[in-house]
């Protein structure tokens, strides 16, 4: 029987890649008087899908990331299935 799973995908620029949006937010926070060392931005996608088991859901979501959701040239991603 198929179960409904919720996948939470976080897609982030690889370490060392310039994150101009994060840098701009860093400067804006400094203008507000906060001391922060860095800000990195990420995109979060919440996907609901039906699958036979958690492993099956994770495998399919990982394939989605590889084929479209993340760009392997610039991104790392992580997946959490619930």
């Amino acid at each position, binding site marked *: 029987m198929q179960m409904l799973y919720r996948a939470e995908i976080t897609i982030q*620029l690889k370490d060392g*890649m*310039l994150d*101009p*949006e994060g840098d*701009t937010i860093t400067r804006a926070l400094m203008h507000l008087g906060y001391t922060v060392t860095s800000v990195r931005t990420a995109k979060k996608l919440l996907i609901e899908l039906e699958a036979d088991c958690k492993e099956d859901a994770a495998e399919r979501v990982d394939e989605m990331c590889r*084929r*479209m*959701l993340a*760009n392997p*040239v*610039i991104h790392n991603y992580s997946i959490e299935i619930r």
Partner: protein
Amino acid sequence: MKFAVIRFGGSNCDMDVHHILSDLLGVSTDLVWYKDSIKDYDGVVIPGGFSYGDYLRAGAIAARTPIMNAVKRLADEGKPVLGICNGFQILVESGLLPGALTTNVYPKFCCRWVNLRVENTGTAFTSNFSEGEIVRMPIAHREGNFFADDATLHILNSHHRVAFRYVDSDGNAVADANPNGSVENIAGVASERGNVIGMMPHPERASEPVLGSDDGLRIFESMVEYAERV
């Protein structure tokens, strides 16, 4: 001979490219909706714009539509494929060209004229230039910051696949002349065979003197002449 200008929802400058090819160069050209077929065409232009609203990443969704498989087949046959701005983003996202286009180093939409140095006249789109020539075209983008890892950059440089670099008026690829933070001031790259090229500047907006420059016209002339040869 017949060219296709592919239209996605959110494409722009598609009419400009059509005007240049059909009115200025007298080449039969169709505007082709992305759900239609391109198999009988001798060359393809993917114009600029904001296909799919730049959702997910600029070009990411258009790159995964079925018509891009047909574009790959044409490219494999050696036919010319030109991606301008969003078209360049679509070509890197589809894997037809290497690298990625990320957010400009100053993260806002940037629309202005730039100087470009022609790095390689051996591609399907640059044969009507001379090497090292400085040309002027406008850019208009927010995600034009070309990135490639060191191994890819090495291949691009050693195989002469960098087509254009952003330069100052003296032809120097300095940081001040780089409008978006692109690695090594790269503005356009070519495929291994030189029949696929992607570039962030808009040659179609610089193809008639009344627009301030007609340097871009030579890209389309080069493409048409190349298509006549293959």
